């Protein structure tokens, strides 16, 4: 590390210590487990021997990303009720995974999703398509993690440029993954889940004990139809009727009634922008007619994207292959839902308290805005209890580090697995030895880590949680329909699956890209200049708010589109259903005890050029 010493001037020693310990422990555990990762199976699926408890912790650790740790709190603070759909659907999406996909997928016994795609349809061609999507979704998902890294480091070291954090964290994780593979990171991620839970709950409870509980903090905001007490609560910093202290809101903050009620600023943004472009006298009528119906569409589309997307994230799915069998896969999923659910109750609390006590964050943009409320809020206690505030802030920083490090390592492993196993081991050099594959794994990790860091440097103006939502929308329209249909419908053919997955996924990708280009064009920093030519797009959105919503949240049309295409094309090419389909279905659905199980990839053959 060659950071100029000047940066250490404004650094809080507690925050630095806690963050440093998290990074050091991560690296140490990575090095330690690197020694026990010896075979290709260790690298790709952790030897298929991870117990339910470890695996559930590891999946939860991997899943709770920077978006969960910082983004959800920031979004609840900036958008209110509507943002609650994110944590709820992030957690509940696992139910779909449990009900329809987890058990059968594990029983099939592949290494990666592209393995499953090839095995289920006997089609090497389909493997190539599936690999591309692993990389697409993966990169979309790494960008917000990288932003989390940049924001957190810039917070810890005031004055440090955003990109330094991205490069530093990217390098540490890439090293870790290259050394230990899947087996190495399973342990790291499991521990990181507990760090994150600790880092979110302890500060929340201390804060609530000092400034007032969750319900009281929400109670301080007026719901629609309620009237303010005599001395308007929003103006005076004196205790309001509920006994909760509030600071006056800044101009940029949404009003109480819009914030606390459904169909608030998040889901009505497009309609409001459209209304602002109209002549003043038409605005009220336009809003009355379109605002609520359009935001209902937005809400449903968001729900579909998050629930189906969770069940289609390649880096989560690949973890189910590390279970010993299908029963363990189902039990793991249930525990993941419990671990994740417990965590997700808390980030919104930060958002709510932040709204009442740190409204100045509303004026900030990008890394200085509401996204950092989790890191900043504990310092409030410093005024009363001195060093406790710094310690708590140090703990949340450590949690944030754990968040983007564990998710990024999981993404890196799944993308590296796709590149090393599917592209190198299956397409380029099918006869390569186990040792050669491990070298390929390490080189792929470095390559993908490099690309992810580069992409991460470009996304500072975009909201963390929003970017994650888009990754989910792409996964929801590509992998979810593929897995759901090919596990439960025998009539599916390769052509049907490929058409549906490609069309759904690419439509969602294109729609997400269009919205991002418009947002980037509005940025006041250097990104705005690069993307300035896309500014007219925003004029188009203002004229067509419904189109804007359908582009920003494409799941409501892209998921049904993908499924319909799969059915129609499969019916048209019904002659191409794999001949041994009954056996394949039996392997997917029969309990292991019947003695049918055949690992699609035989572990002991992995080295023998299988």
């Amino acid at each position, binding site marked *: 590390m060659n950071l100029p010493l000047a940066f250490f001037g404004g650094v809080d020693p507690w925050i630095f210590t806690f963050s440093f310990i998290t990074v050091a422990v991560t690296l140490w555990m990575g090095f330690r487990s690197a020694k026990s990762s010896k075979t290709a199976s260790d690298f790709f699926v952790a030897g298929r021997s991870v117990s339910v408890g470890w695996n559930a912790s590891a999946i939860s650790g991997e899943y709770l990303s920077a978006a969960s740790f910082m983004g959800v709190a920031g979004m609840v603070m900036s958008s209110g009720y509507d943002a609650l759909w994110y944590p709820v659907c992030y957690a509940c999406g696992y139910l779909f995974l449990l009900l329809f996909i987890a058990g059968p997928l594990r029983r099939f016994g592949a290494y990666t999703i592209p393995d499953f795609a090839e095995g289920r349809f006997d089609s090497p061609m389909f493997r190539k398509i599936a690999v591309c999507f692993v990389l697409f979704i993966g990169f979309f998902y790494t960008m917000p993690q990288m932003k989390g890294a940049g924001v957190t480091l810039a917070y810890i070291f005031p004055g440090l440029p955003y990109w330094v954090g991205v490069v530093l964290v990217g390098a540490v994780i890439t090293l870790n993954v290259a050394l230990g593979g899947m087996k190495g990171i399973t342990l790291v991620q499991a521990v990181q889940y507990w760090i994150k839970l600790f880092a979110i709950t302890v500060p929340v409870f201390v804060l609530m004990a000092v400034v007032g509980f969750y319900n009281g*903090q929400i109670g301080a905001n007026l719901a629609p139809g309620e009237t303010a007490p005599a001395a308007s609560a929003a103006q005076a910093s004196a205790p309001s009727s509920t006994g909760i202290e509030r600071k006056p809101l800044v101009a940029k903050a949404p009003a109480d009634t819009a914030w606390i009620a459904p169909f608030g600023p998040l889901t009505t943004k497009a309609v409001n922008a459209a209304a602002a472009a109209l002549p003043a006298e038409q605005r009220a009528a336009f809003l009355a007619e379109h605002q609520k119906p359009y935001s209902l569409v937005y809400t449903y589309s968001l729900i579909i994207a998050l629930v189906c997307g969770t069940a289609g994230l390649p880096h989560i799915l690949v973890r189910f292959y590390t279970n010993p069998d299908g029963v363990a896969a189902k039990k793991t999923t249930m525990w993941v839902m419990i671990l994740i659910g417990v965590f997700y109750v808390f980030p919104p609390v930060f958002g709510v308290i932040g709204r009442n006590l740190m409204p100045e964050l509303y004026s900030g943009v990008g890394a200085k805005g509401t996204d950092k409320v989790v890191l900043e809020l504990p310092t409030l206690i410093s005024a009363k209890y001195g060093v406790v505030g710094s310690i708590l802030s140090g703990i949340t920083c450590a949690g944030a580090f754990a968040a983007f490090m564990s998710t990024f390592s999981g993404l890196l492993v799944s993308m590296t697995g796709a590149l090393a196993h599917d592209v190198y081991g299956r397409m380029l050099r099918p006869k390569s030895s186990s040792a050669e594959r491990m070298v390929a794994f390490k080189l792929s990790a470095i390559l993908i880590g490099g690309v992810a860091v580069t992409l991460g440097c470009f996304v500072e103006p975009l909201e963390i949680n929003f970017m994650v939502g888009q990754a989910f929308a792409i996964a929801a329209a590509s992998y979810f329909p593929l897995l759901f249909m090919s596990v439960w419908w025998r009539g599916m053919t390769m052509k049907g699956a490929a058409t549906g997955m490609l069309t759904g996924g690419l439509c969602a990708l294109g729609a997400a890209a269009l919205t991002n280009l418009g947002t980037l064009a509005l940025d006041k920093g250097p990104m705005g200049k690069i993307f300035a030519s896309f500014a007219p797009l925003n004029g188009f959105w203002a004229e067509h708010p419904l189109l804007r919503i359908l582009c920003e949240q494409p799941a409501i049309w892209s998921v049904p589109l993908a499924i319909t295409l799969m059915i129609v094309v499969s019916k048209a090419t019904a002659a191409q259903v794999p001949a041994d389909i009954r056996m394949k279905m039996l392997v997917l659905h029969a309990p292991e005890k019947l003695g049918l199980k055949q690992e699609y990839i035989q572990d002991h053959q992995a080295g023998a050029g299988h």
Partner: protein
Amino acid sequence: MSSPTPNHDDVVHSEPFLRSLMRRQLALSIACAATFLVALLGLPLLNYFAPAFMATRVAGFTLSWLILGVLFFPFVWIISYIFIKRSLRLEEAEVQQLRR
């Protein structure tokens, strides 16, 4: 893995066995999914058609916030617990049925 006995093999590989295997598990999955979806997709509708009711205060929370931000998590845990229990019992029954 031990290879199954030939007789047992015939039943396992028969069409009716696979059909009943998939149908039973899928019926269970769909029942659980339906319960979940009614709640998940119903909540926005309630927010849309009964905004005043959903804004009722319950211990400081609005009703809608309480349901979504707090109560939804345990609701999903219950569904998944019931699913796991029944699904494992189904698998056990399938194995027993073949051993007889």
